């Protein structure tokens, strides 16, 4: 491989888009050519720089609601009088308002009760989950088995846990799997799976449970925590990622 050929492939190499043979060829060339190596370093540095300092614009909070309303309006137009025939209190706007009012009341009740009572069991676990997440980042002990391949990560837990964790790779959905780790939570050994979203790390803890609970979210010390149960397993996702994107993560996991 000469320099011209190598330059064509350098970007694809930085992007991880080369097949094994091409990767080996380019690595061999880079070892022997200092100029191409420095060009490659430059791209790599630029890539890292954009990942860490590039501005990701998140949608304004009310945009989803506005789109939802517009879509609803299209539906009303299309179904014509079918909707108009129904009593007015059942219009989607009324229902939305009523739901918002109800949510506000529930929230007020919750907030006032939270101020008074000690932590519930699930809040205690949520704190443990956050502590586990922070510890994994602090100690630099994110993974025992670094691999983006679910078929490598899943068997790794064999013999280390008394259950077989479900391991999903969500690279296609923008949450690449980084690997797995053993952890200890809620008084038992659990599986911890690592995912990435932009520059954020997500810890997904997983262990068997008898409980069947609705998804629940917590915000603790700036971390967002989401818990849900599915197929006899308790799942706890924790990250400094915003709650909307963490909710997408949960939705993808539950599919």
């Amino acid at each position, binding site marked *: 491989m000469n320099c011209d050929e190598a330059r064509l492939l350098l970007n694809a190499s930085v992007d991880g888009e080369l097949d094994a043979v091409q990767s080996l060829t380019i690595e061999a060339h880079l070892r022997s050519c200092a100029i191409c190596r420095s060009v490659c370093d430059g791209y790599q540095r630029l890539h890292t720089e954009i990942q860490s300092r590039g501005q990701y614009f998140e949608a*304004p909070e009310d945009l989803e609601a506005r789109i939802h309303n517009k879509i609803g309006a299209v539906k009303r137009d299309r179904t014509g009088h079918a909707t108009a025939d129904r009593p007015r209190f059942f219009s989607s706007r009324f229902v939305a308002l009523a739901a918002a009012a109800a949510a506000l009341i529930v929230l007020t009740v919750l907030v006032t009760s939270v101020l008074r009572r000690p932590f519930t069991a699930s809040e205690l676990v949520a704190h443990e989950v956050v502590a586990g997440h922070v510890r994994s980042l602090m100690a630099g002990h994110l993974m025992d088995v670094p691999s983006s391949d679910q078929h490598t990560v899943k068997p790794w837990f064999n013999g280390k846990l008394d259950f077989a964790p479900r391991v999903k790779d969500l690279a296609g959905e923008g949450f690449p799997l980084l690997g797995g780790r053993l952890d200890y939570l809620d008084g038992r050994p659990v599986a911890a799976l690592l995912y990435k979203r932009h520059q954020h790390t997500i810890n997904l803890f997983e262990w068997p449970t008898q409980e069947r609970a609705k998804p629940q979210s917590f915000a603790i010390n700036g971390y967002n925590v989401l818990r849900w149960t599915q197929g006899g397993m308790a799942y706890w996702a924790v990250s400094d990622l915003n709650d909307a994107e963490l909710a997408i993560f949960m939705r993808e996991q539950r599919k």
Partner: protein
Amino acid sequence: MQRKGSLEQFENTALPYLNAAYNLARWLTQNPHDAEDVVQESYLRALRSFDSFRAGCDARAWLLTIVRNTCFTWLRQNRPACVAAEFDENIHDAPENWCNPETVLLEKADSKLLNDEIAALPYEYREVLILREFEGLSYKQVAQVVGVPLGTVMSRLARARRNLQRRLCGAQTEAQA
């Protein structure tokens, strides 16, 4: 006419990618209000073509394709100067060795400079860069969204980065002078 339930299905399919849609529109229109308009219009278009979307297909790439096309139409109507009718890659290309990458002190480039220079890239470079770097799309997905062959994605991305490096390098040289 939409069947009952398909609207909910549409929302479940398309709304999870709202941030991706907005980020792309925001980078391409360069303005928050225009981005919101474009995103809303994109979702309505997506709803109209939802019948042709097959479950199990790549919903994010499908939606981003619509956002990208809506942006392009919108810019052509409202900011024709931003989308030059004929894009000549050779004019916008930067010579490889314009500056030695070793001397590009990127660690010193502040976020504002970096983002300003990304914003200043020609439209065709900016879109592939945003899709690749911010959304992490594969070359194949980028090719699908932008509607160009894989080889064009590769060359545009390479030129986008070279261009960006040159701009950052130039800005830093000026700052040091």
